[in-house]
């Protein structure tokens, strides 16, 4: 690992969007948890595909179809390697992480869960990891348990043996999109497997920000999205252990997922295509491959180191400048969290805060972050959320901290 400082200026120059001013100010983009910006390499890979290799995949023996297929499968191998999967057939492309979790519930859940079975979630889950299970519960009468959350915004892992007793699946966020809290995955996986439950991880915030190794983590399913890791929208990933995918029925039916179709029925083709009915988002998958190359060249250990340092700077600076006027949810210790900060500032509503910050080009999310049960537990309707990534540096944090004073001026009463 190098001890060179992470070169944010060089990274920023790879992202065309930073060339455009917002409200006549430079863009201070602090919503990468919502979606990341895209480097030129990703945009170029997608354009290049359409300009020089466009054809449908796995459809013909002609040159372009073969080229398109090889580029798409090349991207699959890159993604597999990026997350430590040795078998690229375990990487299933979906529309997004939401579809990946729906696939787990709709395919694995439908054949493996019956009345009286239990799925364990937590209070801080994203709606994408709550609603599919509610839907399954309505259909099959399964029980859903919600692990509590600690005062500093982490999933409370005390008493896991009791919580997991009799559970069939534990499906948890690996890193909170609200508080940035990292979940102790080793503890979760060990306890879940000891209880005979499988483990699914919502890794949307993990994979873009931390080195991720599915073999080391030991989970059974993992879902994440391309667009939060410098890739395009429209493609997500479900990774699952091969034997689980083999045993699962298809999620959607159509072209590309069959071995044979007759008037009587159908048989499915091999993994991973069994779960990829219809023409996939080919250009987007290739874009994701380029995003993985881009992040790998930066080195995910370096990315993590940069974000831990910037997280420490954020937490320190906002407290120094605004003291008790600001409340930041989530762990105080940077090593236990990613750079996602939900915060309250005085009594200014997050929506108004976001509007005022926008005047300075500072882009933060305001709302419930698709985690309403967690918002209810925090006792708030909404929070403002700033999140950091590879193109942010201390000057972005300073801009945010300065801009908060504008809100104070307008809404101090």
């Amino acid at each position, binding site marked *: 690992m190098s001890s060179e400082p992470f070169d944010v200026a060089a990274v920023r120059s790879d992202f065309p969007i930073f060339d455009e001013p917002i*409200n006549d100010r430079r863009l201070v983009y602090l919503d990468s948890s919502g979606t990341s910006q895209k480097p030129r390499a990703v945009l170029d890979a997608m354009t290049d595909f359409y300009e020089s290799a466009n054809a449908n995949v796995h459809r013909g023996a002609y040159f372009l179809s073969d080229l398109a297929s090889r580029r798409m499968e090349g991207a699959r191998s890159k993604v597999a390697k990026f997350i430590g999967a040795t078998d690229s057939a375990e990487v299933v492309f979906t529309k997004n992480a939401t579809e990946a979790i729906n696939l787990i519930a709709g395919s694995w859940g439908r054949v493996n869960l019956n009345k009286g079975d239990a799925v364990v979630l937590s209070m801080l889950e994203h709606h994408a990891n709550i609603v599919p299970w509610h839907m399954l519960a309505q259909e099959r009468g399964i029980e859903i348990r919600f692990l509590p959350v600690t005062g500093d915004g982490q999933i409370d892992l005390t008493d896991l043996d009791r919580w997991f007793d009799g559970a069939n699946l534990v499906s948890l966020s690996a890193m909170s999109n609200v508080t940035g809290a990292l979940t102790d995955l080793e503890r979760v996986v060990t306890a879940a497997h000891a209880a005979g439950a499988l483990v699914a991880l919502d890794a949307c915030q993990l994979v873009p920000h931390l080195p991720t190794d599915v073999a080391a983590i030991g989970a059974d399913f993992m879902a994440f999205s391309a667009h939060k890791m410098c890739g395009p929208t429209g493609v997500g990933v479900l990774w699952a252990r091969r034997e689980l995918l083999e045993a699962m029925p298809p999620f959607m039916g159509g072209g590309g997922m069959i071995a044979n179709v007759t008037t009587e029925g159908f048989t499915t083709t091999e993994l991973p295509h069994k779960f990829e009915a219809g023409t996939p988002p080919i250009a987007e998958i290739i874009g994701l491959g380029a995003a993985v190359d881009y992040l790998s060249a930066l080195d995910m250990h370096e990315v993590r180191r940069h974000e831990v340092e910037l997280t420490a700077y954020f937490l320190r600076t906002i407290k120094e400048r605004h003291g008790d006027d600001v409340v930041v949810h989530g762990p105080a210790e940077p090593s236990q969290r990613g750079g996602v900060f939900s915060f309250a500032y005085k009594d200014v*509503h*997050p*929506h*108004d805060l976001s*509007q*005022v910050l926008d*005047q300075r080009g500072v882009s933060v999310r*305001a*709302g*419930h972050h698709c985690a*309403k049960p967690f*918002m209810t537990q925090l006792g708030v*309707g*909404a929070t403002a959320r700033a999140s950091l990534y590879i193109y942010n540096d201390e000057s972005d944090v300073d801009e945010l901290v300065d801009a908060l004073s*504008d809100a104070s*001026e*307008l*809404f101090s*009463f």
Partner: protein
Amino acid sequence: MAGLEDLYKEIVIDHYRSPRNRGELVSPPAKHAEGFNPLCGDEVQVWIDLEGDTITNVAIGGQGCSISQASASMMSAAIKGKTIAEIGELTVAVKSMMSVHEHALEDDDSGVLPEPPDVELGDLEALKGVVKFPVRIKCATLSWNTLVEALNN
């Protein structure tokens, strides 16, 4: 602050700071509805007491940003004592004042907006500025949509 004067007019901030008709009414007999802005978590509750056709009392609950809560407060002041027919006209007038963008984007492909009814808007006029901030239009219209729902309940 520069650029936001049209949105955060003094009278809007005043209604946000000192909301009118905050509270609850006993329901039934009061008609009640709860409205959410699913994008951002704004929440408005509306209770109405009716005598015949006339609104005799209003109460507003909920939480949210300055625009959603000020709009609810202004609405509560404007509708008390009015008949259902008058409120129907007022609702159309207010929404056509604020939702130019909504119409243009969503359901109007003719490019021609219907002529709004000729109604005295008073304080409500202050919310006109939200048209310049399209993401806030839903905050401003939430209470009016909730009112319609309450009347239909």
